[in-house]
């Protein structure tokens, strides 16, 4: 299977770069930066919508990766996925601090993705799958997309989304769930 092989190759490459990172190899850090900084900065900027904050988050994320590389288990996900989880958490923290909202989701989200999942080997997203999720997101009906984006990119709870829109909580829950279902379909398309 082509996809499985690609994933295997990437998992090996990920394991190597993480081992080098853990050994204090600055070349590995530079390589990782070249490979991932664009996506990290893109996500940070998408969430915090402020260039200075986004660049600080990039620094924090690579610093955290550098310090904690030893603890990262490449069988549990891709390196880019790991960096982006840290990026989202830090960005939402920053956003919440700026808006003085209590921090409710960022921490638990990180825990969730760190928590032992049922079948870790499946949890590496291929580039094709990433593209298909993006396409499925764009293709969502606007209200569903909006609800999901508020949840994901602003870290809003469903009650906060309901208040923001404003829509009944039940409607918001249905929209988020339906949107996620469509994206799951997108994975397999």
């Amino acid at each position, binding site marked *: 299977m082509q996809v499985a092989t690609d994933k295997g190759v990437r998992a090996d490459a990920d394991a*190597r770069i993480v*081992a*080098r990172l*853990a*050994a*204090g*190899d*600055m*070349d590995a*850090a*530079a390589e990782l*930066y*070249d490979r991932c900084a*664009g*996506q990290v*900065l*893109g*996500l940070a*900027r*998408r969430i915090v919508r402020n260039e200075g904050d986004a*660049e600080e988050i990039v*620094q924090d994320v*690579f*610093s955290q990766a*550098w*310090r904690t590389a*030893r*603890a990262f288990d490449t069988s549990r996900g891709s390196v*880019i*996925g790991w960096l*982006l*989880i840290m*990026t*989202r958490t830090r960005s939402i923290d920053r956003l919440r601090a700026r808006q003085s909202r209590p921090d409710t*989701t960022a921490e*638990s*989200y*990180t*825990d*969730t*993705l760190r*928590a032992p*999942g*049922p*079948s870790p080997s*499946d*949890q590496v*997203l291929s580039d094709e*799958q*990433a593209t*298909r*999720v*993006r396409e499925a*997101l764009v293709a969502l009906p606007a209200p569903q997309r909006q609800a999901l984006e508020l949840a*994901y*990119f602003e870290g809003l*709870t469903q009650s906060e989304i309901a208040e923001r829109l404003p829509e009944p909580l039940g409607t918001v829950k249905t929209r988020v769930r339906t949107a*996620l279902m469509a994206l799951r379909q*997108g*994975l397999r398309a």
Partner: protein
Amino acid sequence: MTTPHHDVIAARLSDYALGYLTPDERREVEQHAGQCDACSQELSELLLVMDGLARSAEPVVPPAALKQRVLARLGRETQEGVATVQPLPGRMVVADVRRSGWSGAWLAAAAALLLVAGGSLYLSLERQDRIASELARVAGEITELQQRLGDNAAQADMVLSILTAQDMRRIDLASAGGTQASAARAYWSPTRGLLVAADNLPVPPPGRVYQVWLIGSGGGPVSAGILGSPGAGRGLLIAPPPGGISTGPVTVAVTDEPPGGLPAPTGGKHLIGSL
């Protein structure tokens, strides 16, 4: 497996992926998913979707200066991290509780605890607030210390695993032509990693660091990492095996390179030894 419990859990999977569940609820979901193929499959897919959402943000070309800022910061952090464990025979010293204010924080914690234990009934609300915030601050520092201790424990594990590996061999490194009587011992296990401890090292040339190289048979030098400095004249590296080194004879060399090191050696050779 469709039971009432299954239906409850299945309805919570997307909340799980979005991070809306409490730790107890999350554990319940994980437990069920461990036994239920359908939920396990759906959860895996939802987590992939989360990954896909993260990657749906348009990548941005970072400003050139940002890379320098990031690498410079990591360079400062390397030195701190690598230099924290001294693997002297049979003992380990945590040498890097160096943040100023540490002892102050511990004293404050002790004082706060005494106050709470001894006279909580008599404390004004304002004081309680102050103590609560002090405790929160101390808790944060303890978490950070635990993280550092965890890092040190991981390093100690790696040292032990290198030194006790069946395929471990010792390589003595001698000064490469310099006048200084520096010397180092390398402990190399192709399966576990490399430990290098150096003595009488001169201070590296200004703006340079010591980088350690492994050269296998029939290959070029591969970086093993930057030599940390646990004390004046001493150098220490603890590293997992770099890729691309065969199990055969190896040479270990130390050169001076720009901060952060380079992919291939360019600077002066200071120490060298072969197996």
